[in-house]
């Protein structure tokens, strides 16, 4: 199953992606967390800590260093995951797509950049859960290009701008053929979620404002590690059920003989 998390800047995408990945990995799922923001931060909310987050290799930077250009075929996503993914709690793997401030003059608008931006669509549908935390706004949603088999989670704070961006994200996802779409009202009440659902026409889930999340963020820590039973983290755990993910992974498929 592949899931993308989108929404306005500061809406809570990375916070939710981090805790969601931890819940899923803890339940025994094989999780690939894809940090698609060229200003990568997902490592923090996954619990890697500031140093390991900063040290994680970024695919785009590595490809640029290796001289990969837009004339070269897309590298195999499994190979990239193998080579540049870093392992975290409960076996989850974090793959960082790019770190723009370290590129030093390389072009980000084509070539390797679009290669990395296609990583989400290039990863196969299999028993794993791929969870992509996107850059703020609608542009990256178009790049990620989720399709019929994917799940889109669109996050808004209850502001006029945030709700409007999520309305558009839902519309875009429907245009792309996405069949499972969930809106999330973050730092919000159940009535904010009702409003969001009314505006977007898709089911909406509320995550409460939670000082423990803000406190974790001030320290560069993952809310899931500082307090796994704080209200926002518990709510993100409940969100799992809304995504159509089984509570526990299916039993290991026997390998095909041969």
């Amino acid at each position, binding site marked *: 199953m592949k899931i993308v998390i989108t929404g306005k800047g500061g809406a809570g995408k990375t916070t939710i992606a981090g805790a969601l990945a931890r819940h899923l990995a803890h339940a025994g799922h094989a999780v690939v967390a894809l940090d698609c923001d060229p200003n990568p*931060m997902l490592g923090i909310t996954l619990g890697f800590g500031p140093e390991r987050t900063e040290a994680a290799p970024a695919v785009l930077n590595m490809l640029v260093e290796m001289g990969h250009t837009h004339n070269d075929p897309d590298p195999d996503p499994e190979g990239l995951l193998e080579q540049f993914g870093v392992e975290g709690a409960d076996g989850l793997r974090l793959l960082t797509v790019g770190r723009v401030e370290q590129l030093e003059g390389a072009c980000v608008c084509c070539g390797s950049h679009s290669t990395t931006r296609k990583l989400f669509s290039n990863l196969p549908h299999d028993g794993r859960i791929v969870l992509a935390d996107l850059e703020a706004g609608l542009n990256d949603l178009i790049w990620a290009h989720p399709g019929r088999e994917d799940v889109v989670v669109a996050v808004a704070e209850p502001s*006029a701008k945030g709700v409007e961006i999520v309305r558009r994200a839902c519309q*875009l996802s429907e245009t792309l053929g996405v069949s499972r779409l969930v809106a999330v009202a973050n730092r919000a009440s159940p009535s904010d979620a009702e409003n969001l659902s009314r505006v977007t026409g898709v089911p909406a889930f509320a995550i409460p404002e939670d000082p423990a999340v803000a406190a974790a963020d001030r320290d560069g820590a993952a809310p899931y590690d500082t307090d796994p039973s704080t209200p926002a983290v518990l709510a993100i755990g409940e969100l799992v059920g809304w995504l159509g993910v089984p509570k526990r992974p299916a039993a290991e498929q026997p390998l095909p003989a041969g």
Partner: protein
Amino acid sequence: MGEAPSAPAGSPSSVRPLKVAIVGSGGVGKSVVSATLARTLARRGRDVLAVDLDPNPGLAYSLGLAPSDAGLPPETTIEVKGGLYGWGPAPEVDLATGAMTLSRLAPDGVRYLSPGKIDGKTVNKSEVKRCLGTVRLLVDHLTAPWDIVADLEAGTTTPYEGYARFAEVIVVLATGSWRSCLAARRLCALLPSVPLVVVASKTAPGASDAARWGLPVQHHIPFDPEVAAAERRGLAPLDACSDAPALSAVASLADLLLKVAP
């Protein structure tokens, strides 16, 4: 860079224009600060162009302008080889004044220039690219003594791509969160060498979190429940709560920028 003599205040024609870009990670308050700054400068009698460089809805709400997805009329742009995104202004458009003539009137006499918005109905970004390339060139070439206040898209990508290169001073916003401060540090590392003004936004009373993460914070804009409430309803803070402390803090940011700008 040599120090330019400061122009006498209050006589717009002889005032040296302020050319400022506002950057920062998502949700730090870029659009609130951009809109309030633009209207504050306009209320002082200056000519102000507010440039919306974010293809997502945002700045118009904070300005108090009816949001619109419209970019530039088709006849004002042409395809150019090697131009930004392959597009530029049509020959009829005067490079020196096009940024003004193609803008819309916003409250307090601010002019608002937008390359259009991603509308949710089409997954083809060619319309935004057509307008964005042209808007960026027009902003670079504007010669009239107008202030330019540009609101950039969240994060590091568009600053890296040179969207702030017109600017003579850049405001880098961060909140108290570790992550927004890390983003601010990343931004400081990649921005052009013009004066940077680091501003702690949405700060709690008495808190100095941004300073705690090693950022040279020069100004504070407090978290203001009235601003949050206005934005929740989609109203411009200056229209909903003109006496709010956060808005006075933006007014004093204007003074600081006029001092710091070359």
